[in-house]
Structure formats: structure tokens, C-alpha cells
């Protein structure tokens, strides 16, 4: 363990390097610099990946009015080729969706209902993430994988607690388990040891809901996927019907009360 002064300096400089604005500096005792360094290393590594395929087997808790939590299962299969191609398949207990992004347009396709919607898309995955979030209320599946280590990420500056839990095996692969805290969220991550510091498992506990609903992901990676560029462009199957995608109203005062106005 390092001496207190050294710790302070290390954390301060580390924080400064990560924080755009360092408002409330967390207490030294709550943040293990090694845990922060591991997170930073993982983020830096993720940003070097040009193409990857990742499958997430995941669960999400919903909270009923009475506080009861209900867990649902899902699988996400995502193929990304930076900077401007992405395809994702989302399968959950009662939903199947495909996302297509080819650098020009974004399509969401509901295979079971046979509906699709296509909208013009910005030129990079990063910008697409923002547009989907802000305009359509869609969170990109596995969005963290695109944000860690990027300037858009606000993860590091939000962290108020960081612990190195120790070694842990995920699907037979040696990982190191870390636990982090931030406002409204406790989360744990299992990062692969060795030359490929990939996130292999993630548990998020929402702490500003008394029911403390959880979300979990177990990730399987393929860093050399084979694919055809056509995989990123949507070709409507026979009978598929094109429909609209509702835009989120910018603010509550801007409700039109018509097509998109009832969305708050």
C-alpha cells in the first residue's frame, strides 16, 4: 500500500487526467487506484478494436408498482466494424429486433411483426449512439463497449468507489473482478487477465430504486469475425412493411398532442 501523500498525488493526477471537470474529489480510501487503472486500461484497449463480434447473455430486472422485481432474459449479438458499420440482434423473452447501420442509414426491424423503420444516420457509430438516444429513445445495445475509453464516457469521473475484489473465472477464463460505485449505481466488472483486457461479465445494481433492480451481462468475444459488408445494410424481406419511428419530444412544453406529441 502506498503512503497517504503518494496516494493523494496519484489519485489527484489520475483524476485530473480523466476528469473534464473535477468537482467532488472522492475520498482516497474509497478508490483503489489499481481498480481505476484496470478500468482505464480496458477502455483504452476497447478503443483499439476495429472489428469485433460480441454476444451478451443477459438479464434485466423490472420493478412492478408494488416493488417486486421481475427478471427477464435476453441475448444480444452485435457485430461492429469501426467507424461506420454495426449490426445487432436483440432477442428477449418477447421481442426480437435487428439493428442495421451502414454509415448512411439506420434500420430497426421487428422480425416477428415484420415491421421496419429506416432513418438517415450520422457517419460514425459514436454519433449514431447519440442520435438514437436523443431522438428516438433507443439505447444502443451494449453501449458501454463503445463508450469506455472514449471522450464521450463520463464513467470515470462519476466513480465514487473502486475496489479490486480479486481473481475470478468466467467461462473458464481468468479474470479480475472489480467493484465500483457511482451515484445511483453499484456495478461489478470482470476483466479478462492477460493481453486482451476485455470485459467478460458485468453486474449493474440500480441503487436509487429501493427495489435495487439488477442487470447482468456475460460477454463472449470474437475479435476476428468474418462478415460481408452487405450484412450491415437492410434488405426488406417479402411482406415487410415500412413504418415510422417516433421521435422523442424535445421537452414537455413542446408537446404537439398528435403523432409524436404523446411521448414524454
Amino acid at each position, binding site marked *: 500500500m502506498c503512503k497517504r501523500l503518494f496516494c493523494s498525488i496519484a489519485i489527484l493526477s489520475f483524476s485530473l487526467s480523466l476528469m473534464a471537470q473535477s468537482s467532488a474529489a472522492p475520498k482516497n480510501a474509497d478508490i483503489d487506484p489499481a481498480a481505476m487503472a484496470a478500468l482505464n486500461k480496458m477502455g483504452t484497449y476497447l478503443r483499439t478494436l476495429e472489428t469485433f463480434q460480441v454476444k451478451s447473455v443477459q438479464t434485466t*430486472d423490472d420493478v*412492478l408498482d408494488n416493488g417486486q422485481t421481475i427478471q427477464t432474459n*435476453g441475448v444480444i449479438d452485435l457485430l461492429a466494424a469501426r467507424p461506420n458499420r454495426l449490426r445487432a440482434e436483440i432477442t428477449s423473452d418477447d421481442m426480437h429486433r435487428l439493428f442495421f447501420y451502414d454509415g448512411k442509414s439506420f434500420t430497426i426491424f*421487428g422480425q416477428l411483426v415484420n415491421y421496419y423503420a429506416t432513418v438517415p444516420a450520422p457517419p460514425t457509430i459514436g454519433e449514431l449512439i447519440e442520435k438514437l438516444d436523443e431522438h428516438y429513445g433507443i439505447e444502443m445495445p451494449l453501449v458501454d463497449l463503445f463508450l469506455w475509453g472514449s471522450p464521450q464516457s463520463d464513467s470515470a469521473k462519476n466513480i465514487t468507489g473502486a475496489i479490486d475484489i480479486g481473481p475470478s473465472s468466467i467461462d473458464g477464463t481468468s479474470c479480475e473482478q472489480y467493484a465500483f460505485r457511482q451515484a445511483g449505481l453499484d456495478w461489478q466488472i470482470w476483466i479478462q487477465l492477460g493481453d486482451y483486457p476485455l470485459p467478460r461479465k458485468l453486474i449493474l445494481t*440500480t441503487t436509487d430504486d429501493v427495489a435495487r433492480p439488477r442487470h447482468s451481462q456475460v460477454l463472449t468475444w470474437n475479435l476476428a469475425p468474418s462478415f460481408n459488408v452487405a450484412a450491415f445494410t437492410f434488405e426488406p424481406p417479402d411482406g415487410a*412493411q415500412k413504418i*415510422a419511428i*417516433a421521435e422523442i419530444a424535445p421537452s414537455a412544453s413542446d408537446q404537439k398532442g398528435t403523432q409524436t406529441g404523446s411521448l414524454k
Partner: protein
Amino acid sequence: MNRSIQNLLSITLVLLLSCGPIFAQRGGGSARTSVNGNANRNANVNSNKNVNANINHNANVNVNKNVNVNVHQDVNVHGGYYGGGCCYHTNTAAVVAATAIVTAAVIGSRVNTLPPACTVVIMNGLTYQQCGTTWYQPQFVGTTTTYLVVAAPR
């Protein structure tokens, strides 16, 4: 259209809306699914990220036993909702008398499921579902399919 058929359709529609799949409100929302994200999204994730149908049933029962049922659904969506289910089926009592004359879905409201026996009509390049005298426009809201009640297209 024959009056009795029209009534039957309307009643069927309202029965469906009333006691068909009702989406249990998830007051606490659902678990956050990402660590990163802007403050807005994080705030919304906890409040209205999930697709909830908040249904207000106003049943005005008149002396002559006509029942007017106004169904209005606010669909609140923010953020993706992956791995989550959307529908928890609950039993709610139907408020419609058998002989009721019913005003059906309000234009501008949304439903998550259609009544039976709808016809797909493509008009001006847009897909509609015509269910009796009520027209619906399918739309994605977030990643969820919803049906917006619209005026009959021309």
C-alpha cells in the same frame, strides 16, 4: 355500416383495450443497463425508460346504461430496453355492459396490441391497420411496436 355490427366491433375493441394485455406499471422502472451515459439518460432510465402503458379508464355510466369508455395510453419510452419483457398481464375488470354503446379509441392515443380482424392498408406509402372504423398507424417507440390511433387516411 350496420349499427349492431358497429356496436359489436366497438365493444370488442374496448373489451380488448380494457382486459387485453395490460401493462403492469413498473413504478421503479427497470434496472439500468449501462454504466456510461449522460445524466439525462441516467435520470430517465430510472423513471421512464421502460415502455409502460398508463391507462386511464374513465367510465361514465349514464342512466340509460350507455357506457362511454375513453382509453388513453401514454407510452413513456426512453433508452433501449434490452432483455426486458414488456408485458405483464394482469386481470382487470371490464367496465363495459353488454348492451353498451361505446366510443372507441381516441385519436392520438396509443395501444400496444391491435384488436382482431384488422386489415393492412397501405396509403401514400404508409402502413395502416384498419380495425373496423378505427385506423391505427404502427410505429416504433423506442424498440417497441405501438399503434397510434389516427383519423382515417384519405
